[in-house]
């Protein structure tokens, strides 16, 4: 039986909230420090349990009524006007890749590489992407290093090389 999106979301949330509350109970020392995390975490956990119960109840009710029809409706409702999962995750992957790039290569190189590659991937022509990448890199470099006198993070590789 395939679970509805809301059921999965609330279940994951329950686990996170339970961890949060238990951490406050066992790890945070003074009562004064742990009181609010337990109270707010507990109240949120209770709300999440209500949400989970409703999601499960709704799921059973719908399946009893008209399984085939509901399954289609459910899929439509879940997807709604949202962007497709695959595309969203790929684009989010680019953001994570950019972060990794900054960590390894530093801001200046990573910004140029990311802006060029991502603009190209989104369908920009090479020339426009190159101009865009140069401009945005120059903007950040001039703004931060020269304007704000703020040295940008150099990245693991350049730091290893002594820059």
């Amino acid at each position: 039986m395939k679970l509805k999106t809301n059921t999965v979301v609330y279940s994951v949330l329950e686990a996170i909230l339970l961890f949060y509350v238990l951490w406050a109970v066992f790890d945070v020392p003074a009562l004064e420090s742990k009181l609010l995390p337990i109270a707010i975490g507990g109240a949120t956990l209770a709300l999440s349990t209500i949400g989970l119960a409703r999601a499960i109840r709704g799921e059973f009710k719908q399946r009893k009524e008209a399984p085939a029809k509901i399954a289609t409706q459910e899929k439509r409702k879940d997807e709604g006007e949202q962007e497709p999962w695959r595309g969203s995750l790929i684009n989010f992957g680019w953001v994570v890749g950019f972060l990794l790039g900054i960590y390894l290569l530093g801001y200046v190189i990573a910004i140029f590489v990311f802006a060029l590659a991502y603009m190209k991937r989104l369908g920009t022509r090479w020339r426009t992407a190159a101009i865009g990448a140069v401009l945005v890199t120059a903007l950040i470099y001039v703004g931060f290093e020269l304007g704000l006198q703020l040295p940008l993070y150099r990245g693991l590789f350049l730091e290893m090389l002594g820059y």
Partner: protein
Amino acid sequence: MDYGALIRSLANFSSPELWLYIVFGIAIGLFFGIVPGISGMTAITLLLPFIFNMQPMTALTLIMVILATQYLGGGITAILLNVPGTSGNAATLLDGYPMSQRGEAGRAVGAAEAAGGLAHIVTAVVALLIIPLIVPMLRAIVSADMVFIVLTGIILIGSLSGGSLIKGLISGGLGLMIAFIGFQPTTGYARYTFGSLYLYDGLALIPVLLGLFSIPEMVALATRGGTISQKAGTIKGLADVWRGVMDVFRHWWLVVRSELIGFIVGIVPAAGPTPATFIAYAHAKQTSKQPLNFGKGNIEGVIAAESANNSSEAGDLLTTLALGIPGSPAMALVLAAITMLGLAPGPEMLTRHLDLSVTLMWTIGISAVIGAIFCILMAPTLAKVAFIPGRILVPIVLVLALSGAYAYHHDFNDTIVVVVFGAVGFFMRRFGFNRPAFLLGFVLGPIFEKFLFIAHKVSGPFFFNRPISWGLIVLIAFTLAYGPIKNAIKRRRQAVQA
């Protein structure tokens, strides 16, 4: 009430530096308002890392200018492209776009901009005049009441911003929970730091904000594909635009009523501009001599919608400054900025920092009038901005978001936090959780904890036994009970009918 502050604050506008920021803010606000898919909120989120060491007056003026002018820009795309630049312009397209299709785009844009500019200046003055009524009420507020004011804000934003009540409340709760990370101020014990020195001071506001709002929107825009409607209307000439401006003065009574609706809805915490526009639009239709023309290109529809959404801003700001409860999701960002700049949102803003608050009100009015005049004169050119494709915009905004986070503390960990909260924001957006409520919980969490402990120390466990606190408790109970009761009545009626 210090009436001198109303005049004294006008002297702040003699500073050329302030004017520079006003002009800059107008350009940013119009740009982000015109480009569909991003809004003034995105602009403010990206700017926050750069304004934290600015003077509060300059920084908040810049933010208010952006917020005040975004709807003016958004109205242009609603009329020409049938795509509202911001959610507050959603009702404008109902009659604006049909007018555009009929070849009256210039007239619609002229009416929208004139109504918007006028609405801002009128409601800013009204807001200034009613401050004396609000100040005595604020003086009666003590720590115990502040606890419930914070709770009321989170619950109102969580429950009234649309979507599921439970998800809204959970979002607010999650925001509060994240705010508890780091040292607890009264005991000095660290909470949820997992041994990381970075977490000892708690999570910084800017990386959390950038992650929650800019990353999910950009990921969505990149996935959707960046091309906007191709069937743009055109503006023939300024004579047509001027005709629209005159329409606003011809329908002055409608303008007054719509502004009143917008202002009052704006004052209501968590309501925001979108309901205000639709209420004003429905009211205009009900009272019009030509109700059947609504939706087919009636100028009254454009005027009512734009008067209302632009009027809500002053009301929104008043609630945000006076009570520390944001009137709309955008005002949650203003609240975040106020906190970040070292000011305390709430009653102090209308007493100790009255000059600043009054200047912000004047800023709304003045910048919107300048913005409206600029839009009226440059409407044909401004319309072209809407065609900047997402494939260029998205990488630039992402670069600004991840670099902006670094500017705050010069710490790479902040950049990691942006991406982590980008993921949180992505899932919240995807599954219908309420990001403004989360943000509000996060911003108000430390204030909530501080006032709760003060109230408890001063008045004991029954600290809430005060008229204002009880009033707020009743309001919270009503807010929570309203939805379920309404649904139960609806179900009962349906059962009776069946």
